[in-house]
Every structure is written in structure tokens, then in C-alpha cells.
């Protein structure tokens, strides 16, 4: 056997051995599927009824439900704050709606704000790792496993709806919901329209809390679905979106 033949035979042998190893290690066909009672939509949207919300000054039911369900920490230091759903003044939420005759009461009116799940989401556009992206059903999803903490998405988001973990959030959790992971130092987080609840057939935690209290200020659903309450409300009433001129096309509508 000359040198060439030896190399050929050795190569074939190595290929055969490698193939056999791969063959035995091949993962068995695995099947994953959604739960039976999943709620699906072509496009998810949220309606926030500002009139109904204003009836309950100081109410934090939606915020508390969201932050408890998702282990969102309460960090007193404003620079390090982490939030998914919070309240901002009307003036900060809709700067272009405020003019010289707007009363102080209106300006100071607290408005719930969260990720707008923009149809044209700038955060998803700039994310270099695909950790945040737009799902087919309109949810701007967050994959914490792929987040490298570059914060491009935070720079891109005009609504300040994303928070960075400057430190380990666990010491700032009063109670821990074991069913949902916390986050760790160095990743960005935001509202996901409760993707983990929708797949189990449940409405978002904030919407559920507001409905359970009988306030009905939060609507959620597919506006294009016949008979959906949110679709009816959006057609019947005036609704604002945050900074529409930016062209992000928010899917959170404020009914006025």
C-alpha cells in the first residue's frame, strides 16, 4: 500500500466511524406543540380606556399583577429601575397632544404605558442577535437566552419601554414566582404581551387583573376578529397612539 492508498483508506475508515457515532447519537423525533386551549390571533392589540382608567386614581392592579407574574424587581434607584408596565403623565405619554390650553389636571393624569408591540418595531430592527424580533402574530418577543446586553434596542425604542439589568435583580424581588424565570445582570427585558399566558389560553396578567377588579380599562384581542370587543371599541371611539409620526405603528391604542 503506498502513501496515497493509505490516506484514502484511513479517511474512509474515519468517515465510517464518525457516521456511526452520529447515527447512534441522533436525537429521537421530538414533538412539541401548544396546549389545547391556546388563544391565537392574526394580530394582537391592546386597548387602554383612559376614561375608565381615570376613574380609579392610584390603582396599581395591572402593574402589580404583571410585575408579580414576571418577577420584575422593584429597584428604588431610578437609573437602575426595571419595568414592564408603569404609569406616566398624560403630558409625557402624548407630548404632541398637549397645547397651551391643556389643563394641569389633564397634563398630570397618569396613563398606563408599556411596550407598544409596534408593527414596525425599531428595536427588532436593530437587534444584532435576533434576541428581540417580531412574531407573526404581532408580538415583539424577547429571547433572554440570546440577549448580549448591547442595549441597541433601548436606544432604538422611542418609548423607553425596555429596561436593562445593571445588577442582579434577585435581591429586589419581594416574592418569587417560581414558574417564570427571573432575569440576570446584563440582559434587557420588556413586556411580551404575556406570550407564556396566551399559549396556555389565558389573557395577559394586567388585563385579567383589571377585569377581575371590574374596572374594564384594559382590552386585549384581535381587532380584526368579528365580534371582538377591542375591534368594536377601536371602530366606535377615538383612539390615540404614542408618537404616531415616528411611523412605528404601535399596537397599543389609548381610547379617549
Amino acid at each position: 500500500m503506498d502513501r496515497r492508498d493509505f490516506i484514502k483508506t484511513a479517511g474512509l475508515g474515519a468517515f465510517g466511524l464518525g457516521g456511526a457515532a452520529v447515527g447512534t447519537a441522533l436525537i429521537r423525533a421530538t414533538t412539541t406543540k401548544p396546549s389545547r386551549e391556546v388563544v391565537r390571533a392574526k394580530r394582537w392589540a391592546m386597548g387602554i380606556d383612559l376614561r375608565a382608567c381615570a376613574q380609579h386614581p392610584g390603582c396599581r392592579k395591572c402593574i402589580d399583577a404583571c410585575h408579580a407574574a414576571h418577577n420584575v424587581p422593584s429597584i428604588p434607584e431610578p437609573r437602575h429601575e426595571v419595568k414592564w408596565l408603569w404609569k406616566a403623565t398624560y403630558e409625557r405619554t402624548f407630548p404632541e397632544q398637549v397645547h397651551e390650553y391643556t389643563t394641569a389636571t389633564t397634563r398630570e393624569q397618569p396613563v398606563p404605558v408599556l411596550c407598544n408591540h409596534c408593527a414596525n418595531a425599531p428595536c427588532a430592527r436593530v437587534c444584532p442577535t435576533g434576541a428581540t424580533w417580531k412574531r407573526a402574530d404581532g408580538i415583539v418577543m424577547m429571547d433572554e437566552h440570546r440577549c448580549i446586553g448591547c442595549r441597541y434596542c433601548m436606544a432604538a425604542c422611542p418609548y423607553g419601554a425596555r429596561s436593562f439589568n445593571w445588577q442582579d435583580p434577585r435581591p429586589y424581588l419581594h416574592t418569587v414566582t417560581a414558574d417564570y424565570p427571573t432575569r440576570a445582570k446584563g440582559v434587557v427585558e420588556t413586556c411580551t404581551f404575556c406570550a407564556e399566558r396566551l399559549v396556555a389560553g389565558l389573557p395577559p396578567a394586567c388585563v385579567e387583573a383589571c377585569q377581575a377588579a371590574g374596572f374594564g380599562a384594559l382590552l386585549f384581542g384581535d381587532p380584526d376578529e368579528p365580534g371582538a370587543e377591542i375591534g368594536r371599541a377601536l371602530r366606535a371611539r377615538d383612539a390615540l397612539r404614542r408618537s404616531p409620526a415616528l411611523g412605528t405603528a404601535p399596537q397599543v391604542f389609548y381610547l379617549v
Partner: protein
Amino acid sequence: MADGAKVAGGLMVFVALACAPIWLVLARRSTASQPEIELPVGQKRCVESAEFMRQRHAALLVDWRDAVVREGLNRYVASDGREFRISLTGTCLGCHTQASAFCDRCHAYIGVSPECWSCHVRPSENP
């Protein structure tokens, strides 16, 4: 080649010494030590067979993770047809309640340290 015998003898002694660990194990008729893991009590079968889990649990968890986060699914159908909710904390640790005496012991032995627990909660062991 007057020293041939000496060289050969020296080589044999060297080989014998270099292989000493093998001889010792063979002489004691024992295999290498294994990590002592605590299996769940009152449960017979893992999500898949023990063999499969030993070899492929890391890959299975990656599949689970992508199914939930990237594809919006939440149930896993095992090869024997049983259905599981996909959850590292709820399902895996639901049976393997003592992760420190199971996952950690094996991982310490093998020298891997998955970072999952900085986010995924261990019910009995977290704050």
C-alpha cells in the same frame, strides 16, 4: 546492539508503570468512581428513557427552550406518548426536586456549570 536487552527491559518497566492506574483498577475489579446522584422517589420513568436523558438532556433542554421562546409552543410529547408541560423549573425540577443533589452533583463531577439558574428558579433553594 550490546545494550538491546537493557533497553528492552527498561521500556517494559516504563510501560508497566505508565499503565499502573489501569492495572490497579483492573486488580480491584471496580470501574471508575461515579457521581452519587439522588433519583426522585416515587417516580419510575423520566421524560424519556434514562439512557436517552443521560446522553441528550442538554439537547432536549435546548429544544424545549426554542419551542417555548421562539416558536410559541408549550407542550412536549415524549416518544411513549406522555405529554409534559415544557418547563425547566415546573417539569424537570417538579420530579427532580433536589437539583443540588442531582443536576449539580453530576455537573460538578463532569466539570460543566450551566448558567440557567441565574434566571430559572429553584423553588426550594431560591430567596
